[in-house]
C-alpha cells in the first residue's frame, strides 16, 4: 500500500498536506493501519454521522461532562467526541513510553534535589532564581523526605508530532493533570459505536488505570499499615473535573471525599463516617497546593483540611501528588528539561522538547522580538491555551499589541517555533478530513513508573486550528495502541 495514495471511498480526496498519522505516517506498510484505512474508506458518511450523534447523546445522558457555570446556572457540557480513533503503532508507543518514564524519573529526581541539597543549582545547570524565585517553588517542602522519593505520582506529558512525525514534548503536567477518565470512556464509546472498525484488532488495554493508581497510593502509604485507607480528595461537585474525580474514585474503589469530610487529630487524618472517625492513610488529591491546608497555605481556603500538611510531615499520611511539584512543570523550567534529564540520569532525552526560548533571558527576548511573526509566544503562568499568540495567524495589529505586552513583562513569556502538528482523520460535516491532534499520556509512579497505553488524544475540531483545548473548539478521540 502506498503512503501517498489513500484508499478511495470515503477517504477519496483526503488532504495529506500535513503529516497524517494514519494516511501518510512513518510505517506505510503496517498491515494494521492499512486495514483500518480500508475499513474507514468503506464506511458511509451518513451512518457515521448517526453513530456520532448517538455517542454524544449517550455521553450527555451518562453525565460524562464538565460543568460550566455562568451566573447561577450550571450547564453540563460534554467534551466533543470524535469517533474515529487515533492509532499508534507498537513501535511508536515504545518511544513514547520509554520517553515518558525517563522524563518522570528525571522530574522526581529534580524535585528531590531542589527540596534537599540543590546540587543542580550549585552546579549552575539552571539559574537559582528561576527555581527558588518561582511562584510554584514551596519553601515549606525543604528537607521533607517524601516516601520512595516520589513527588509526582501522576504525570501527564503533552506531546505533539512535527512535520516529520517526531514526537516532541510540549509541556509537563506534574500537579493535578486531568483527562484520564476520557481516555477510558472514549475507549468504551469507540468500541460501542464502531465495533466494525475495531473488530479483530489487538489493542493495549486501558482498563487497569484505577488499580495501578490505587497501588501507587498504597506504595506511598505509611509503613506498617496493613490495609491502607486510600481516598480521593476533590474540591466537590461544582468542580469542572468532578466527573473525573467520581470516575477515578470508582475505578480505585475508594471514597471520594471533600475537605469537610476529613479532620486531623494528633497529626493523623480521619474521615467522618456514620460510625465515627476512621483513619485515612493516603490521599489522591485533586485540589491545588494553595487550598490543601489553611494552616500552611491560603488561610481562606474552605476546600482543604486544617493540619493536613502537618500530618503529612509526620509521615502519617501520603499525599499524591506531593506539594510543590508545580515548579517542575513550569513553562520556564521546561526549557531546561533536556539538561535536567542529562544531569540526573546521564542519558540523552528520548523525547525532545520543542525548541524553546526564554524571554527572561536577553538573547531569548531579542530572538523572540525579531521573529514574532513566526513564533508561538506563551505566558508561562497560564494554561488552557489562553494569552498566547500564534505569529503566523496573527494580524499586524495583534502582533503590535502583543509586542507591547511582551516588552512590558518579558519574564512572563517563552517562545517556540510553530509546530505543524500531525493530523488524524476526523469526522466532519461533509467528509472525513484531517484535523490536528496532540497526546497526553498518563504515567503513574509508585515503586516504579507505569504508563497507561495511549493517552488522551485531543483534537482541534476547527479546520487548520492548532489549539486543541476544549475551551477553544477542541474535542477528543480514542487512542489505540496496537499490540
Amino acid at each position, binding site marked *: 500500500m502506498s503512503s501517498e495514495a489513500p484508499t478511495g471511498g470515503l477517504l477519496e480526496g483526503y488532504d495529506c498536506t500535513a503529516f497524517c498519522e494514519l494516511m501518510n505516517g512513518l510505517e506505510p506498510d503496517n498491515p494494521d493501519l492499512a486495514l483500518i484505512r480500508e475499513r474507514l474508506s468503506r464506511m458511509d458518511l451518513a451512518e457515521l454521522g448517526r453513530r456520532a450523534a448517538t455517542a454524544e447523546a449517550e455521553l450527555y*445522558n*451518562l*453525565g460524562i461532562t*464538565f460543568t*460550566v*457555570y*455562568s*451566573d*447561577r*446556572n*450550571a450547564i453540563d457540557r460534554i*467534551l466533543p467526541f470524535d469517533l474515529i480513533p487515533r492509532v499508534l503503532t507498537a513501535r511508536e508507543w515504545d518511544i513514547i513510553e520509554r520517553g515518558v518514564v525517563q522524563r518522570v524519573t528525571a522530574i522526581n529526581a529534580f524535585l528531590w534535589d531542589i527540596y534537599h541539597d540543590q546540587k543542580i543549582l550549585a552546579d549552575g545547570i539552571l539559574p537559582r532564581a528561576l527555581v527558588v524565585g518561582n511562584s510554584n517553588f514551596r519553601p515549606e517542602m525543604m528537607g521533607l523526605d517524601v516516601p520512595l522519593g516520589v513527588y509526582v505520582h501522576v504525570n501527564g506529558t503533552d506531546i505533539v508530532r512535527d512535520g516529520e512525525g517526531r514526537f516532541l514534548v510540549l509541556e509537563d*503536567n506534574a*500537579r*493535578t*493533570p*486531568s*483527562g484520564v477518565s*476520557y481516555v477510558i470512556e472514549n475507549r468504551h464509546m469507540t468500541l460501542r459505536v464502531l465495533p466494525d472498525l475495531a473488530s479483530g484488532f489487538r489493542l493495549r488495554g486501558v482498563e487497569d488505570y484505577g488499580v495501578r493508581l490505587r497501588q501507587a497510593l498504597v506504595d506511598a502509604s505509611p509503613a506498617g499499615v496493613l490495609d491502607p*485507607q486510600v481516598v480521593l480528595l476533590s*474540591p*466537590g*461537585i*461544582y*468542580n*469542572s*473535573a*468532578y466527573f473525573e474525580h*467520581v470516575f477515578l*474514585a*470508582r475505578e480505585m474503589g475508594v*471514597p*471520594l*471525599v*471533600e475537605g*469537610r*469530610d476529613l*479532620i486531623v487529630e494528633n497529626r493523623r487524618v480521619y474521615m*467522618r*463516617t*456514620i*460510625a*465515627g472517625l*476512621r483513619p485515612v492513610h493516603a490521599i489522591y488529591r*485533586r*485540589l*491545588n497546593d*494553595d*487550598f490543601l491546608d489553611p494552616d500552611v497555605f*491560603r488561610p*481562606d*481556603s*474552605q*476546600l482543604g483540611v486544617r493540619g493536613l500538611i502537618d500530618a503529612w510531615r509526620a509521615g502519617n499520611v501520603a499525599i499524591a501528588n506531593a506539594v510543590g511539584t508545580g515548579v517542575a512543570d513550569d513553562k520556564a523550567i521546561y526549557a531546561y528539561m533536556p539538561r535536567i534529564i542529562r544531569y540526573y540520569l546521564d542519558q540523552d532525552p528520548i523525547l525532545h522538547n520543542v525548541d524553546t526560548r526564554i524571554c527572561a533571558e536577553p538573547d531569548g527576548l531579542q530572538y523572540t522580538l525579531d521573529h514574532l511573526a513566526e513564533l508561538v509566544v506563551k505566558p508561562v503562568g497560564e*494554561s*488552557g491555551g489562553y494569552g498566547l499568540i500564534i505569529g503566523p495567524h496573527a494580524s499586524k495589529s495583534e502582533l503590535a499589541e502583543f509586542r507591547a505586552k511582551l516588552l512590558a513583562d518579558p519574564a512572563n513569556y517563552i517562545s517556540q517555533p510553530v509546530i505543524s502538528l500531525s493530523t488524524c482523520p476526523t469526522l466532519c460535516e461533509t467528509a472525513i478530513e484531517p484535523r490536528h491532534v496532540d497526546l497526553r499520556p498518563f504515567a503513574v509512579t509508585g515503586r516504579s513508573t507505569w504508563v497507561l497505553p495511549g493517552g488522551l488524544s485531543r483534537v482541534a475540531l476547527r479546520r487548520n486550528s492548532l489549539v486543541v*483545548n*476544549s*475551551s477553544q473548539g*477542541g474535542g477528543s478521540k480514542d487512542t489505540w495502541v496496537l499490540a
Partner: protein
Amino acid sequence: MSAPNGSGGLANGSNGGGSGRYPDEMEPIRSSDLLSRYAESTVWLARYMERIENLARVLDVTETFVRTGTGRDGWASVVQINADDEPFRARHAVADAASVTEFYVLDTGHGNSIASIVNMARENARTLRPLISTEMWTHINVFHNWIRRLGPNDVRPSHLSALCARVKQECQTHYGITEGTFYRDQGWYFYMIGKYLERADQITRLVDIKYHTLLPEEAGIGSEVDVSQWSAVLRAAAGYHAFRRTMPRVLRPKDVAGFLLLNNAFPRSLALTLRQVYWAVGQLRTDYGLRRSGMILERLDELRASLLDQTIEQIIVRGLHEFLDWVQLELRQIQEGIASAFWPPPPELVLPEQAVDGGASTLAQSQGGMSQTMGSMTQTLGGMTQSLGGPRSSGNTQDQS
C-alpha cells in the same frame, strides 16, 4: 395480583416484622464505613424522589377531582397540604388549575415545585455518583433534563394528567433501578430510611388536610360528594382498590383515615412506612453495630406503639389533627436524631457557610489550577454556596415546611 387469601388482607404473608422480603440471615456487607456526607445525601435523594411522586399524585388526582366538578376548592387544598400558603400567595391571587400547576411543576423560585425538587434530587445524586450505580445517575440525569425543558404549554390542564403519569412513572423507574442496582450496604439502609420517612410524612399531610377540608360539617357525611372525594383521596395514594378489598361495603371518612394510617399491608400507610423505617434503622444497628441508632429506634418504637394502641375512632375522638401534628413532629425529630447520630455538623463549618461570598474566589482559584487539566473550563463561583450548604440546607428548609 396474587390469589386471594382467607383474611381478605393484601399480602398478609409479608407482615412479619421486617423479615420476609429481606432475608435477615444474609451476611451483612462488610465494606468501609459510609461517609457521613454520603449518608445524608442518600437520605435526601430518596426523600426528594418520593416527594416528587407524591406531588404528582396529588396534582393528578386534584385535576380529576376538579374537572369532574366535585371539589371547587380542590386546588387550594394542594397548597394547604404542602403548607405553602405564604409563598403561593406571594405569587398568585387565586388557586386554580393554572396557578397551582405552574407553582408546583415549573416554578423554580421556591423549593417545593417538581422542577426545584428534581434539581435538588439531582444535586444529591451528583454528590453520590461515586456510590450509586451509573444507571441510577443516568436516569435521574435524563429525568432532570426532561423536567428542565418543560414549558407552560406542557402543563396546561389538558396535558396535566399525562404529565403527572409520566412523572410518577419516572419516580417509580428510579426506585426500580435503585432496587435492582444499588449496592446493599449501609447506603441502602439510609436510602430506605429517607424514602419511608418521606412517605410517612406525605401520608399524614394528605389525611390531615383532606379530613378537615372534606369534613367541614356533619351534613356532608355519607353524601355522594363525600364518597367521591374520599375515593379520590384513596386514589391519590394508589389505595382505592386495596381499600375496597379490606372494606368492600363502606367508604366512610374514618375508614379511609384508618386505612391510610393504620393498615398493616398498604405500602403507603403510616403504619407500614414506620415499620420500614424501623427495619432499616435496626439493620444499621444489627448488621453494622451502629449503636448510635439506639435512640432513634426507641423513638420509633414509641411512635409505632401509639398507632397500635389506638383505633381510628379513638384517634378521631381525641383529635385527629392534633395527633397528625404530633406524628409530623415526631417524624422531624427522628430525622433530626438520624442527622445528629450519623452526620453531626463539623463545628468549624458552621460559620463559613455564611461567609460564602468571600470564599467564592477560593473556589475559582482552585479550579484555575485544575485547568492545567483539560484547559477547558470557564469557571465561576456560583457553586460554593451550594457546594457547602447545598443538599443539606435545602433539605432542612424542605423538612420544616
